[in-house]
């Protein structure tokens, strides 16, 4: 039995389709990353799976319980960390944790071994008000609170948004540890670079899942050749490159442009056709998840 089964799930807010016939499976002990821009429907999916919303159509099961019929059972076996910081800023670190322990009718001691690796880092500040913690520490506290009742499935909605790079990396280390303990984790993020830390990733956009695979599998899915190009006048380069035969797509990517080409592409011809563009540098590169995402989005 899969830990999460989503079957043709749809949800609209008025006329806006937030989620459009989404289906996927998450195995027990798997870490699945939902990757997509804002408005892709990630939060809606989390709210449906944590039984906060009712689906318009389709079904989903979490830990074997139906999200519509058995929502009460789901509520006691999942851990949920919403996108916004959702602890009490006027309570101290320790008081927050105690409250969440009481909420699930457990004691901090019972779950201490599970939360210790995370909680130990913020324990020196246990009398500090949660509102006065730094972004990274807030996330650690929120994760500790979400884990206090030893959930079997963990839902983390953009846990690393607004957190510095070091804390983000630490946070993913913690998730790997939790995964090793057999906890199923569904995590969403707008950062493509975090994808490699997941077992599998689902690329989402506009309420649909564009593709779901291992990070390597997703990249292999990219069946075209990719070049990174740059020149003195980047804008002219972009316009010119798009006109050349054999070029499927050309888009800005950081400091360079990425050039997607098919079989009919010829490097010498390409250079010749660019004409007035000066100082062209062109390097063949391996595609990243972002390239795949862009490709899937344009299809």
């Amino acid at each position: 039995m899969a830990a999460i089964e989503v079957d043709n799930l749809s949800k609209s807010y008025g006329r806006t389709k937030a989620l459009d016939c989404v289906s996927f499976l998450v195995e027990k002990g798997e870490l699945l990353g939902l990757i997509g821009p804002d408005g892709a429907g990630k939060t809606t999916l989390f709210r449906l799976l944590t039984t906060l919303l009712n689906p318009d159509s389709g079904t989903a099961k979490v830990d074997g319980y139906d999200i519509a019929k058995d929502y009460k059972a789901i509520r006691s076996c999942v851990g949920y960390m919403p996108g916004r910081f959702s602890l009490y800023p006027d309570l101290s670190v320790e008081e927050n944790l105690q409250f969440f322990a009481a909420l699930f009718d457990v004691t901090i001691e019972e779950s201490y071994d599970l939360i210790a690796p995370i909680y130990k880092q913020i324990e020196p500040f246990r009398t500090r008000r949660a509102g006065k913690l730094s972004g990274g520490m807030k996330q650690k506290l929120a994760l500790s609170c979400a884990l206090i009742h030893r959930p079997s499935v963990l839902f983390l909605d953009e846990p690393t948004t607004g957190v510095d790079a070091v804390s983000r990396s630490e946070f993913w280390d913690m998730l790997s540890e939790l995964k090793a303990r057999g906890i199923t984790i569904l995590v969403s993020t707008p950062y493509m670079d975090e994808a490699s830390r997941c077992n599998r990733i689902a690329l989402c956009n506009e309420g649909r899942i564009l593709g779901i695979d291992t990070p390597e599998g997703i990249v292999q899915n990219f069946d075209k050749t990719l070049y990174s190009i740059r020149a003195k006048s980047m804008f002219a380069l972009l316009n010119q490159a798009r006109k050349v035969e054999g070029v499927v797509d050309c888009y800005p990517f950081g400091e360079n442009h990425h050039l997607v080409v098919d079989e009919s592409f010829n490097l010498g011809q390409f250079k010749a056709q660019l004409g007035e563009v000066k100082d062209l540098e062109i390097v063949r590169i391996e595609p990243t998840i972002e390239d795949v995402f862009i490709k899937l989005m344009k299809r």
Partner: protein
Amino acid sequence: MKHNFVSFVKKETLHILRDKRTMLVVMLIPVVLMILFGFAISTEVNNVNVAVVTSKRTDSVRDAVERLAQNEYFTFKGYISQDEIDPYLRSGKSSAVVVFAPDYDRRSAQAAAGMPTKPIIQLIVDASNVNTAGSATAYLQNILLGSASQQAMFETRMLFNPQMKSAYNFVPGIMGLIFILVCAMMTSVSIVREKEVGTMEVLLVSPVRPVKIIFAKMIPYFAISCIVLVTILLLARYLLGVPMTGGVWGIFSLSLLYLMLSLSLGLLVSTIATTQVAALLISAMVMMMPILMLSGMLFPIENLPKFFQVVSNIVPARWYIDAVRKMMIQGQPLVAVWKNGVILLGMTMVILGVSLKKFNDKLE
């Protein structure tokens, strides 16, 4: 599960204690309102300067003036001549002038002997403050017609509050207002805050029934309201000298019922509002205005247009204020206001029922 209910109450108490400013406001508002309405904003007669015009200072005139001078609410400014009436009133040297007719003495003697004549007194009152003028006139009449034979003409008698002290009238009104403010507004804002901040999401994704969390929220506010209640009663009794002959316990128990009602109202508001500002506005507009206008706090219900008289029946504060007035000022026991009690209890049940039904354990 008992253990976690206590934790919820503790958490809620911490929220309130940490928000010192709100706490201070809640504790001070009743005191300020009591002092404001008790002393500053009053329609009662206080230190009214009275001058007297008479052609002959006969015994009966002297007798009447003596009664006036003795009264602590009037200050006798002396006898003046007919021509001085206007300058006296204009300069504010006196706010009322009592003019005894030249035949006052003869006529009162005849009246005392049982003859069908009436002594004539003219009252000239500065009515630039209508309220004060009205009360002063009524009270002056009362004093001047002191002896039994003359009362035959005016059968006016002020019962329970002969000096028409406005504080007596305002205390029940303030109580009706303040508990809505503390209970309904504060609870609704505190529940809605959880929605707005997003903690409600986390609370809902837990095995605890949200109703339990809500009830835990009400308890500290209930406790605060009890403190406020005791403060108001103490201030009313010892600062404003409200008699409360009907027994404090009656007032106290009816007030507890009203507190429950206010808490239920707060819960109802929280099921409608999604932001703290909305909760505040709903509490202020939908609850405060009717209390001020339609509960008999400021204006007597009998003076309202027929339509609003009917509407006032659904304003809980109306029944509460009415009952507290009866107990506080008329000195009636709790049993005498059983009807109000039953109505308030019924309203509580309905509001609580509706809000629990409306309270959603999902986000939509």
